[in-house]
C-alpha cells in the first residue's frame, strides 16, 4: 500500500483522540541529534475544527482485536485497515519534523493481535527514532491496557508523555460499551506510570544521568455524552485522577456517533460541544484557580449551567461574599472574581506593590471590567452601587450559549435555544428569547 494511503487511513482513525499537546518538558537541542522541547508546548497548525495540531497523531495500526462499540476501529466495523512498519513511521516523523510541520509524534495503536504485540511494535518505532535517529523532539505514547509492565516500562523510557485512556466516566459504562477492556486493565498501567515517573524524578535529583521515565507526565481522556453520568460525577472523577495519579491533563471528548448501536445514543445525536466546553472550563478551575469539584457542582445541581460558565455561576451563587478589594485581597480571592484570570491576578499582585490600583489601571492590566466591576472595589471605586441584579446576570451570561453573533444555529448554543430554533424560529431570535427568560430567572435566585 502507498504511504499516502496509509497515512490517510491511520490519521483518520486517530483523529478522535483528543490530546495533541507538546507541553511539560524543556529539553535543549544537542549536536549530533535533531530536536528540542519547550515546556509551554508549540502549536504548529490548527485543523478545520479549530483544534491545535502539535504532533503527528497517527495509529501504528488500526487492525483491532477489540470490539468497543463507540470506536471507529472496532473489529466489527467495515473500514479500510492499514499498518505502518516501525521504520516507515520513524522516517515520516523525522521528515515532517525537519520541515517544522510538527513538534513530534503522538503514537497510539489499535490492539493488533494482543496488547503485548502492539506495545512491542510501538517500542520498536520509538527505539528507531530515539536511538538510531537521535530524535530529541516530543513523543507522546499511548499505553495499551493489558500490556505487560515490562513493556510499559520500556515505552515510558522512550516517550516524554504517556497516557492511558480511561475511556468512559464509570465502570458500569465501561463494562457495557467496551467489554474487552476492564477498569482494572486501565488503572493498573496508570498507577505504574505515576509511580515510575515520581521515582525517576527523585532519581534524577540524586544522579544526573538517571534515565527519565515519561518526564512530561501522563494524561488521560474520556468520552462525554455516550453514557448517562452527571457532570458532577465526571468532574469528581477528574479531580480524583489529578490527585491520585498526578495527571498533567484530563481530556474530554464530546461523543460523536460513529455507529448505530442500541447501547449508544441515536446516530443523529449532535456532539454535546457546550457540555464539553463547560467541562474544560471547570477543569481549568480545578488546575489553576484552586476550586474543588464540590464547589463547582453540588449534589443539588449536579450538572453545569448551560448559560453561565462555572466560575460566573459560582460567583452569582456567592454574591454576598463580594466585593473583593483588589488592593489587599490574597491571590486566591482575586482568582474568584469573574473577569480576573491567573495572568491578570499575577499582574495585579505585581502592580499593586508599585501603586494603589484604580479602575483605569485594572483595565490596562487586562481585567475584564464588564464582568469584574460588580465584584471588586479599588482606589476611587467603592464597588458598584446596588446594581440591579438583572444587570449583573446579563453581564455574566455566556453569549455563546445564546447563539450570539451567528446567523446559523451554532453547535455551542444551549439545548433550549437549539430546541426553539428546531421548531422553526430564527436562531438569533430564539437566543434572545431564552436570554430574557434566563436573566429574569437568575436575578430572582440571586
Amino acid at each position, binding site marked *: 500500500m502507498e*504511504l*499516502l494511503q496509509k*497515512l*490517510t487511513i491511520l*490519521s*483518520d482513525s*486517530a*483523529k*478522535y483522540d483528543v490530546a495533541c499537546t507538546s507541553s511539560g518538558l524543556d529539553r535543549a*537541542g544537542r*549536536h*549530533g*541529534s*535533531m*530536536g*528540542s522541547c*519547550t515546556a*509551554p508546548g*508549540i*502549536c*504548529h*497548525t*490548527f*485543523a*478545520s*475544527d*479549530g*483544534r*491545535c*495540531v502539535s504532533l*503527528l*497523531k497517527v495509529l501504528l495500526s488500526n487492525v483491532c482485536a477489540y470490539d468497543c462499540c463507540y470506536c471507529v476501529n472496532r473489529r466489527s466495523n467495515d473500514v479500510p485497515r492499514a499498518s505502518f512498519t516501525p521504520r516507515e513511521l520513524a522516517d*515520516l516523523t523525522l*521528515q*515532517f519534523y*525537519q*520541515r*517544522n*510541520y510538527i*513538534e513530534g509524534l503522538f503514537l497510539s495503536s489499535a490492539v493488533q493481535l494482543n496488547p503485548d504485540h502492539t506495545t512491542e511494535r510501538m517500542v520498536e518505532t520509538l527505539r528507531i527514532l530515539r536511538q538510531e535517529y537521535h530524535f530529541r523532539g516530543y513523543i507522546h505514547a499511548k499505553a495499551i491496557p493489558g500490556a505487560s509492565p515490562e513493556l510499559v516500562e520500556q515505552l515510558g523510557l522512550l516517550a516524554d508523555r504517556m497516557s492511558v485512556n480511561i475511556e468512559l466516566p464509570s465502570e458500569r459504562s465501561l463494562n457495557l460499551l467496551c467489554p474487552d477492556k476492564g477498569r482494572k486493565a486501565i488503572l493498573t498501567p496508570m498507577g505504574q506510570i505515576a509511580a515510575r515517573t515520581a521515582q525517576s524524578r527523585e532519581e534524577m535529583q540524586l544522579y544526573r544521568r538517571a534515565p527519565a521515565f515519561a518526564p512530561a507526565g501522563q494524561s488521560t481522556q474520556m468520552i462525554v455524552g455516550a453514557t448517562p453520568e452527571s457532570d458532577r460525577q465526571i468532574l469528581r472523577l477528574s479531580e480524583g485522577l489529578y490527585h491520585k495519579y498526578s495527571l498533567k491533563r484530563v481530556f474530554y471528548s*464530546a461523543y*460523536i456517533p460513529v455507529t448505530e448501536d442500541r447501547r449508544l445514543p441515536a446516530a443523529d445525536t449532535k*456532539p454535546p*460541544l457546550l457540555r464539553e466546553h463547560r467541562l474544560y472550563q471547570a477543569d481549568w478551575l480545578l488546575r489553576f484557580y484552586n476550586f474543588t469539584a464540590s464547589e463547582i457542582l453540588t449534589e443539588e445541581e449536579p450538572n453545569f449551567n448551560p448559560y453561565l460558565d462555572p466560575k460566573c455561576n459560582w460567583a452569582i451563587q456567592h454574591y454576598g461574599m463580594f466585593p473583593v478589594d483588589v488592593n489587599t485581597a490574597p491571590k486566591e480571592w482575586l482568582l474568584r472574581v469573574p473577569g480576573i484570570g491567573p495572568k491578570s491576578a499575577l*499582574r*495585579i499582585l*505585581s*502592580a*499593586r*506593590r*508599585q*501603586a494603589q*490600583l*484604580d479602575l*483605569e*489601571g*485594572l483595565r*490596562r*492590566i487586562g481585567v475584564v471590567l464588564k464582568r469584574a466591576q460588580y465584584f471588586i472595589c479599588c482606589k476611587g471605586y467603592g464597588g458598584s452601587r446596588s446594581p440591579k441584579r438583572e444587570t449583573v446576570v446579563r453581564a455574566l451570561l455566556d453569549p455563546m450559549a445564546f447563539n450570539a453573533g451567528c446567523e446559523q444555529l451554532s*453547535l455551542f448554543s444551549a439545548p433550549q435555544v437549539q430546541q426553539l430554533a428546531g421548531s422553526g424560529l430564527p436562531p438569533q431570535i430564539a437566543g434572545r428569547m431564552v436570554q430574557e427568560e434566563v436573566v429574569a430567572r437568575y436575578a430572582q435566585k440571586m
Partner: protein
Amino acid sequence: MIYRYDGSYPGFLCCVFESFVRKALPLAIEGPETAQLSFFDGRDIPTEANKAARVEASLAPVLGVRAEELVHYAFLSGRPEKELLILRFLHMAFARGRGAAWDYAHPDAAPVLDLEKAVRGEAHLLTGFVRFQVADGMLGAVIRPKNYVLPLLRPHFCGRYPDKDFLIADLTHRTALVYQGGTADYAELPPDFALPPPDAEEAEYQALWKRFYQTIGIRERYNPTVRRTHCPKRYWACMTELQDER
C-alpha cells in the same frame, strides 16, 4: 519637535539621549520608513556609538534587567509609534527607578508591555508556523511577520536543528537568518529572492502533510472561527497546508 533617526536600535538610543538632555519629549520619532513631510519642527538625530553605549549601559544597572529586556523586545515591534512609547516609558522609569517594569497598571508602562507581548506572541506563533522546504540538503522558509522576530526565532531553530543548514527569510523586513556550518547570521535579502521550486521528494512530503492536515479535522466539529482566532489568516500564505484554503 519631531526626531528623525536611521531606524536602528543605536539610533533610537541616541534619540533617547537627546530627549533626556533636552528634558523634553518630542511629538514623534520617525524612522526612515515612517518619515513624512510635516509642518512641525524636525531634527535629524545622528547615530553616535558613544551616546548609544552610554544609554544602553545605564539601562540594567539603573532600571533593572527586566526593564532592559523589556526595552529590547519592545523595540522589535512593527508598530510605527513604538519609539515614542518606549521613550515615554524610559522617562517614567528613570524618574521612578527599578519598579517601573513591574507596574502593569501605569499608563506609560502598560503600552510598552503590550508591545513586548505582541512581539513575543508573534515569535511564539512562528516557532510553530514556519514551514521549511528541503532543497539541496538545506532548509529554507519564508515568513511575513508584523514584528521583527528573527532574533527570537534564532535560538529556537539553531537549538532545534544544530547540524542542519537553514535559512529563514523575513519578507516584511527584507532580512534573512542564515545558519550555516554551525554559525548563524543575518543577511539582507536580495530584491528578487525566492525559494527554489520543490523537487519531487519535497513535493511528496508536502502532499503527505497536506493530506494529514485535511484528514485530522473532524467534520462534525467544523469551526472556522476558532481556527482563525488561533491561526490568523495573515500567516496562511506561508503555510504549506493552508495556502490553498484561503
